Structures are given as C-alpha cells and as structure tokens.
C-alpha cells in the first residue's frame, strides 16, 4: 500500500521525495497504469505517492522574454488551449491537442510525459524541436538538463528518484518561424503515436529543425535532413528530398523492420508535408 502525500509547496514535495522511495504523481495517467500493473503482478508498490498538482511553481507559464518558461505541471489541455502557446509555439499547441483523449489531456502533464519518456510521447518531439532545457530540483539543489540528454532510452531518464522536473525553458524563436506538427496514429484519439514529426523553419532556412518521434528509442533531431535543408531553395522539390533523406535516416538507424513497410513512406511523405505546412505559415506572413 502506498501512502498518499499531497504536497502543498515545492519544499513539501522535495522533502517527501528525499527518501528516494516515493513516486511523483502528476496527472497520474501513466503512473496509475504502472501501479495497476504492479498490483496485478503482485509487485511491490512505492512507499509514497507525492501528488504535486498543488505546487504553484509547476503551473507557471511565461513565454515572453528571453527565457520562455513552461511549468512541468501544465496539462496538455492547458497547453493546447492557452492563447500564448498557440501564438508563440503553435507546434506545441498542436502536439498537445493530439495527445490521448479529452479525458487524458485534462490530467496528463508535459512534465509527466517527459519523466516517463515514452518513445511515443507526442509532447516530446515538440519540446525537442524547441530545444527545451529541463529545470530540475531536489532537496540537494537544482540542475538544468537539455531534454535530449535527460531522456536516455525508452522510459529511461537521468532523473534521480528524489528529483522533480519543475519546468522547461524553450528557445525564444526569434522573429517569425513557421512551425508544424504531424502525427500518424491508429485511432484519432488515445492512439499512441506511431510516428510524429515536429518542424520549425525560418525564412532563410537557417537552423531548420526536424524532429522525428516514435520511430527511435528517443526523439531525435535529424541532423542530416537539417543540413540538407540549410540554405536550400525552399519548395516542393526540397521538401521531397528532405522527406527521402528522413526516410533513409530512419532505415539507417533502425534497419528494415516489418514496420518499415509503412513507416518509410509515411516518414518521407510526412516530413515533406510538415515542411510544406511550416513553410506555408511563413508565406502567409509575407
């Protein structure tokens, strides 16, 4: 049996986590499934569940300024519907709106999504494209860690048992960038993504970002695709080439598995489409 601790402040939460025997309960959408499995299997349960939903620091949302900040306790519903997020990071708002179902979006949090590091998590690709840096606290102090280093393998992170993700600092994409999110899943809702893409472009095609999620153990930027795009001539031809490159990146890393039969063409077309979408956002601004 787990003891339930409702933390009213950050200090309380960190103190409760200090034992190393406690689990953070944010939305609960992943944790409750894990607990259910453990119970069915007769495995040991965590000594304590630390509910962090009432910790004020975790729901801060401040996107202005040079260090746009997103609290880890914001739900996908919060992110998908906040006008600030829609205006500045439409990619993240779109990704948030495709996570799970209405019911899941009401409770699941972006911090929980990261802490659980599901390879299929939709929120992660968007954060990686935005160069998110996680701000992490424990009773020992604080640290910052880029998302790509925090998540090391499927369902694995460098988070210690006494650590809590407070939030994420995002790239303050200067000026106007075109952003797009694209997802292929089995069912409109609930489906865990089979493939998702997050793309950010600016007009000169400097520093383009192409993140492919759900296809690799951890979401990753496709460096070779980004290189191909850099300084290229924007248009269908380039998007198509980038798509082909993304597909070959995938087979290069993952080999030709069964799922490649649909994934390879889906990656090629999806990448081209996401790039075209992101570019059309820029064109609309002209």
């Amino acid at each position, binding site marked *: 049996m787990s003891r339930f601790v*409702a933390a009213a402040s950050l200090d309380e939460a960190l103190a409760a986590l200090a034992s190393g025997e406690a689990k953070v*309960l944010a939305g609960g959408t992943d944790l409750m499934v894990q607990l259910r499995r453990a119970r069915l299997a007769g495995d040991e349960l965590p000594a304590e*569940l630390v509910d962090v939903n009432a910790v004020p620091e975790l729901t801060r949302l401040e996107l202005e300024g040079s260090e746009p900040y997103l609290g880890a306790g914001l739900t996908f519903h919060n992110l998908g519907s906040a006008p600030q997020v829609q205006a500045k990071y439409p990619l993240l708002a779109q990704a948030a709106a495709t996570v799970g179902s*209405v*019911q899941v979006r009401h409770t699941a949090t972006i911090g929980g999504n990261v802490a659980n590091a599901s390879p299929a998590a939709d929120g992660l690709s968007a954060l990686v494209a935005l160069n998110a840096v996680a701000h992490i606290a424990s009773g020992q102090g604080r640290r910052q860690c880029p998302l790509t280093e925090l998540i090391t393998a499927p369902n694995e992170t460098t988070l210690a048992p006494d650590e809590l993700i407070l939030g994420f600092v995002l790239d303050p994409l200067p000026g106007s960038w075109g952003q797009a999110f694209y997802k292929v899943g089995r069912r409109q809702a609930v489906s865990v993504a089979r493939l998702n893409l997050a793309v950010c472009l600016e007009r000169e095609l400097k520093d383009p970002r192409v993140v492919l999620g759900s296809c690799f153990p951890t979401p990753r930027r496709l460096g070779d695709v980004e290189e191909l795009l850099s300084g290229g001539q924007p248009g269908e031809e380039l998007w198509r080439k980038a798509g082909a490159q993304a597909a070959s990146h995938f087979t290069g890393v993952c080999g030709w598995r069964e799922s490649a039969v649909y994934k390879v063409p889906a990656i090629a077309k999806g990448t081209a489409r996401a790039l075209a979408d992101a570019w059309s956002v820029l064109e609309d601004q002209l």
Partner: protein
Amino acid sequence: MPPNHLEKTGRLEFTLNGQPVSLADVPGEASLLEVLRGRLGLLGSKEGCGVGECGACTVLLEGRAVNSCLTAAWQAAGKRVITIEGLAQGEVLHPLQEAFVQTGAVQCGFCTPGMILAACDLLSKNLRPSDQEIETALAGNLCRCTGYHDILRAVKRAARWIREERP
C-alpha cells in the same frame, strides 16, 4: 482547505454528486473508479479497460471529464465529482440521458455513462458543437455497438434541447 488536511484525519473527503462523502482507509494507489464502485457502490461508472483507452469510466472532476481509472482516488480530495448517478434531477433525466434514450444511442449500454459524461463536459462549454467537435470530445470513448452515428445525433439533440431550455 489545505491539501494536507487529509493527512490529519486520514480520511478521504470529497463531494460526490452534490453530497459530501468521507472514507477511511483509502490506499494511495486506489483509483477513483475502484472507490466509486467498490467503496461507494456506484456501479454506473464502468471499467472497460482500466488503462485509459475506452472512456467507460469517465466522470466529471471539478466539471471536467477525466478517466476515473487513471485518477487516484485521493486526487479527488476536497473536490467535486459527478458520476452518471448524479445527472438526473430526481425522476427527470438530464437532457443528454433523455436524448440518448429517444435517439436509440444506447444498445448494450456499457459505454453510455462515459459517453454521456464526456458529452456533458462538451456541452458545458459549447452548446452548438459541430460534428467534428463532438467527435473530438468523444474520441476517448469507445462503443462496440452503436456505430457512433446515433450517439452524435443524441448529443446534438440534447444540445438543442438545452439551448431551447426543454427537458
């Protein structure tokens, strides 16, 4: 109330369908669904999958549709929970319930409580939902029987009744 009031009494207290409830000895890992069904005897909320895929366990927590199988019971502490049992006013069905009955949107009925509460959340924000908005709002609710078509019709009908303030 401070969240940790619960540690002082050790009792889980919340408002269920307008009535206060107070329960002793609720383990931290218990889901709200387990408590509703097992401890409080409200069998309207169903367990289809237990892992957030089917929506049969949907309840309103502070007015928002959530999967009660994915919600720790203690997350409801100090909050308002509405289940399907709390929608009708005495003998008068909620417009959504009435519309589901009249439209034939219920076959085996297993998905119905969850569907109705998810729809209830939608209509509390949007009384003129498009088909697509209804589909999005109900996308987390599976129905094995109806093919969804009549469910969509029922939701629209209920929305119209509520707009026209008819039962």
